[in-house]
């Protein structure tokens, strides 16, 4: 096992570096991904039309602003929901705002864990990054479909349990970070050149008296 002091030092250095970079360049990093997220959302949630997705200033914060509307009248649990402005000339919809920091925090945790854990060889580090990137994107993108339904659920259907929203609340309430940590640990274990190093926590099996 690596010394905890060394590991803590690496976590502090890598964590500070990643968080500083993310704080300063989060907009530049996310902006090119917005069309990808928007087209993914359109395919995954065809109940909604995505009118726009951008990053805007909101006081001192940067937020992801999503304009969406129901694509068609939708029948849910005995109630009919019409798009805002349905059969009228008015345009409109929902505006959902998510803080950029809150949206990318799970992804950054995966990145910190994967980079901070000693790799031994640059190829291992690169492989870990290649595994981490799709998971980071998935973690970021998974929040949006739930956020589209969340306003409707909270205002009119709060008596019904939706698995998607339960999962989303779990992720946003701290579960996402734990999942991020587990994803990072899983990547390290799967890509370690010497499985005994990554899984050395299993070694204290001999501790059992």
């Amino acid at each position, binding site marked *: 096992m690596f010394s905890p002091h060394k590991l803590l030092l690496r976590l502090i250095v890598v964590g500070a570096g990643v968080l500083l970079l993310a704080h300063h360049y989060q907009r530049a990093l996310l902006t090119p991904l917005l069309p990808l997220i928007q087209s993914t959302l359109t395919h995954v949630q065809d109940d909604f039309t995505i009118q726009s997705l951008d990053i805007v200033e909101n006081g001192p914060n940067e937020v992801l602003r999503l304009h969406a509307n129901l694509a068609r009248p939708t029948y849910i649990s005995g109630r009919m929901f019409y798009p805002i402005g349905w059969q009228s000339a008015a345009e409109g919809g929902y505006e959902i705002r998510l803080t950029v920091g809150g949206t990318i925090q799970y992804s950054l945790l995966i990145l910190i864990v994967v980079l901070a854990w000693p790799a031994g060889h640059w190829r291992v580090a690169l492989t870990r990054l290649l595994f981490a990137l799709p998971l980071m994107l998935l973690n970021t993108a998974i929040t949006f479909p739930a956020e589209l339904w969340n306003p409707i659920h909270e205002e009119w259907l709060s008596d019904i349990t939706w698995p998607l929203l339960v999962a989303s609340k779990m992720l946003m309430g*701290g579960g996402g970070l734990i999942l991020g*940590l587990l994803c990072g640990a899983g990547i390290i274990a799967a890509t370690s050149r010497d499985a005994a190093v990554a899984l050395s926590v299993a070694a204290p099996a001999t501790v059992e008296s």
Partner: protein
Amino acid sequence: MTGAIELRWHILRNDGSQQCLRTGRKRRGLLCAAFAVAPLTWRSRLLGLLAGIAVVFAINQARILLLFYAYRADHTLFDPLHALVTPIAVVLLVAAYFYAWLFLTQRHVQST
């Protein structure tokens, strides 16, 4: 006219404010799960868990104090600290504590 434009948008915000009153419950859950499956003696497991709960509590209090003073000193610091830095730091510190406990236990066993 501006009012008419604003009325066309049903604005919903999720700025993470529902997370303000976090008590570290999920971190304690993480720690409990980790100690439940860790290959340790029962004594070491129990001691590690009890100490860990105290560590999580201390880390959480430090986080709240940091956020309070950051907000008082500079409003713009609050959001990055609240939404990005402190949640990640808390999880990493809890994980580091668990790792350190495993490491120390193993070393203790090897030395005896």
